[in-house]
């Protein structure tokens, strides 16, 4: 039998409780067990009412984000054994700053609405006809946005960002990083549309560069970097429209022409 560790899990039942309370569960520590394995053990063997999200158990789906000893972590990527020496207790809570639906399950509709607002999809500019074949990209062009494309929407960065907690209107790290993912894509032409949404106190200017989002990101997306680079680009874009107001109108016109040509 392996050693054991105490999991202190925040339990919240919307029917019964006013706020979450901690309940302790003793779980075995196996060398290859992650926190998610321990949660599954509790649910299977001890208390079937424990509620949490999980799916792929391999850092791809981004659903098992939880607070482990006050740090946002993926349950599937955090080894239980790394906490065995620290007082033999691990505190597991729902991700910080999100409304809690039950136990460790957070409410994500606000995040999803914000994500949609930044248009995280390709908005092609002068889209070539299908007969021209694939839209090829060089490895350098791919490299430009690949890092930001690794985001799995696990929302750990939201739980790490104090601005998210203090200002509920802030769009947040992952959404801005994903906007940057499409801005940096050579096939995309929607930068102006996204900047119209994001060059705003609730967008990039809401970020005070705490940098914690980058530190906790399990996919090394670097949302803090994305936001600061976006700030630089937004200022340059603004300066360009100030110096060359006709440049912006022209590009808008070409887009409209391209749009009507495509409609024809």
């Amino acid at each position: 039998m392996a050693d054991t560790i105490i999991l202190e899990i925040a339990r919240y039942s919307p029917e019964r409780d006013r706020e979450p309370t901690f309940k302790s569960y003793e779980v075995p520590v196996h060398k290859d067990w992650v926190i998610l394995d321990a949660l599954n053990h509790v649910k299977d063997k001890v208390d079937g009412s424990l509620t949490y999200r999980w799916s792929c158990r391999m850092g791809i789906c981004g659903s098992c984000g939880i607070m482990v000893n006050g740090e946002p972590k993926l349950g599937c990527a955090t080894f239980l054994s790394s906490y065995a020496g620290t007082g033999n207790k691990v505190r597991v809570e729902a991700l910080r700053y999100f409304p809690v639906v039950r136990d460790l399950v957070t409410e994500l509709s606000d995040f999803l609405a914000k994500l949609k607002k930044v248009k995280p999809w390709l908005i092609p500019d002068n889209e070539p006809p299908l007969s021209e074949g694939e839209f090829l990209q060089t490895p350098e062009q791919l490299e430009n946005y690949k890092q930001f494309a690794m985001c799995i929407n696990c929302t750990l960065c939201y739980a790490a960002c104090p601005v998210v907690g203090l200002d509920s209107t802030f769009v947040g790290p992952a959404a801005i990083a994903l906007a940057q993912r499409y801005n940096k894509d050579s096939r995309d032409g929607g930068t102006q549309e996204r900047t119209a949404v994001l060059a705003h106190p609730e967008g990039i200017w809401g970020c005070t560069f705490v940098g914690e989002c980058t530190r906790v990101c399990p996919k090394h997306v670097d949302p803090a970097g994305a936001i600061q680079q976006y700030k630089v680009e937004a200022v340059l874009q603004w300066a360009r429209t100030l110096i060359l107001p006709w440049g912006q109108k022209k590009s808008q016109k070409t887009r409209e022409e391209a749009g009507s040509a495509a409609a024809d």
Partner: protein
Amino acid sequence: MQQLTNAPLYTEYHPRWYRPHVSVYWWLGQWRYLKFILRELSSVFVAAVIVMTLFQLRALRNGPEAYAHFQQRMQSPVIIAFAVISLFFVVFHSITWFNLTPRAMPVRLRGKRIPEWMVAAPNYALWAIVSFIISWLVLGGRG
């Protein structure tokens, strides 16, 4: 069918969700957040040092007597204590911001992103050079 499509997918207000309250002292619990607050606070001391420098320049313009008076005022223990604290915060401010420059400036060389320290290093180098020149001008002039 009509009702189904019109029904809201989510409700913004839900009485049964637990909505955690963010304490005013959220930054006290972890060193990382405290460090951020100290970094933000350091701007106040940076501003204070700039104001002090402006006063010094004004005294310099007003002649030797005014400058001697300024120097005398600067020798008060309160001002010296404030200057020491300011020095700490100005250094803290510079280091934390220099270390953050690679985040905002992804410099690419031949298609590859150069290591972070190579972006931060020129800042430190420039800082050292400017500090050396200024101290040489100030201390060298006396010697």
